[in-house]
């Protein structure tokens, strides 16, 4: 290979790198990565709604959403969390319409569309109840980094599961989590920021 040919090849490489660099610089920054470094949490999914029809996550776009993973045979933590979200949402401008509250079952074995639907209707305000085939649920759990595990108990089984709520903006991008033990003032401030 002559010196001349090597020089041409190097210049071509330089040109490619320059064009690539300009192209990357011209890309608009993704809103999720601008707001937090945890942009990998969440993503599009399709589950089953309480009407037994497919529910694509794009239906949540247009307003913020609070997503909670639980199960209908959960008598304490799940209703406590959902009731708290309903109460917090009432304090927002726009009230019940200001944010979607989404309950995703991690117990698809017991929770069909009818079960999640009637459970979601317990709270006297709109709550979206979702379930799906076990594989679909596993996929969504992975998207959100959610843990759940069946634990045998006398009289049935319970499910250990992540207790956090995922707050998503109107474009379906992850913004923050709500933990059960943070005070209502902090929780409300986080939720209000979603609306901004």
């Amino acid at each position, binding site marked *: 290979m002559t010196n001349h040919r090597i020089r041409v090849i190097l210049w071509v490489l330089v040109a490619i790198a320059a064009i690539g660099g300009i192209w990357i610089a011209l890309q608009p920054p993704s809103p999720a990565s601008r707001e937090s470094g945890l942009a990998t949490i969440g993503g599009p999914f399709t589950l089953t709604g309480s009407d037994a029809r497919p529910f694509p996550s794009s239906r949540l776009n247009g307003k913020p959403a609070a997503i909670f993973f639980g199960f*209908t*045979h*959960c*008598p*304490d*933590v799940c*209703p*406590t969390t959902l*009731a708290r979200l*309903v*109460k917090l949402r009432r304090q927002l401008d726009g009230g019940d319409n200001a944010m979607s509250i989404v309950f995703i079952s991690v117990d698809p074995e*017991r929770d069909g569309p*009818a*079960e999640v639907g*009637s*459970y979601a*209707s*317990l*709270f*006297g305000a709109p709550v979206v109840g979702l379930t799906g085939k076990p594989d679909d649920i596993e996929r969504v759990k992975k998207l959100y980094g959610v*843990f759940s595990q069946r*634990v045998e*108990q*006398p*009289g*049935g089984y*319970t499910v*250990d*599961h*992540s*207790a*956090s709520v995922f707050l998503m903006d109107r474009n379906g991008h992850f913004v923050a989590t709500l*933990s*059960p*033990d943070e005070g209502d003032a902090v929780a409300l401030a986080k939720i209000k920021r979603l609306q901004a």
Partner: protein
Amino acid sequence: MILRISTLALLLLASCGQQEAADIELSNAWARPTVGQAPGAVYLTIENKGGQPDRLTGAFTDHAAMAMVHQNEVVDGIAKMRMAGEINIPARDRIEMRPGGTHIMLEGLRAPLRSGDDFDLVLKFRNSKDQAVKVTVTNPEGK
């Protein structure tokens, strides 16, 4: 003099050993409404007005197939619900069950709990006799 003091001390010690027994009072029992086959959770306050501790050993109700004392805890962000075993009720103290902690889980409810309903629940203690309390079903937000 020394004899007198030691007699007094002995009397005091003897009276300590004869403190009044545990005196259990139940109040503020409530549960959220339920749907379908889902279990319910009862929260209540157990007050021990007596001078001796006691232990909650179990719960019964005709309203459900099983009533179990459960303990919820969040470990590393994971909510776990387990049988609680016996719960100590210290002398002159109270246990207030609140959502997210200890509760009486009702599995196999005869009928879903509806706001405004009430039903009887009996708690069993190691020393005190059984105590009954009326459980009120609140609105979904609970107390």
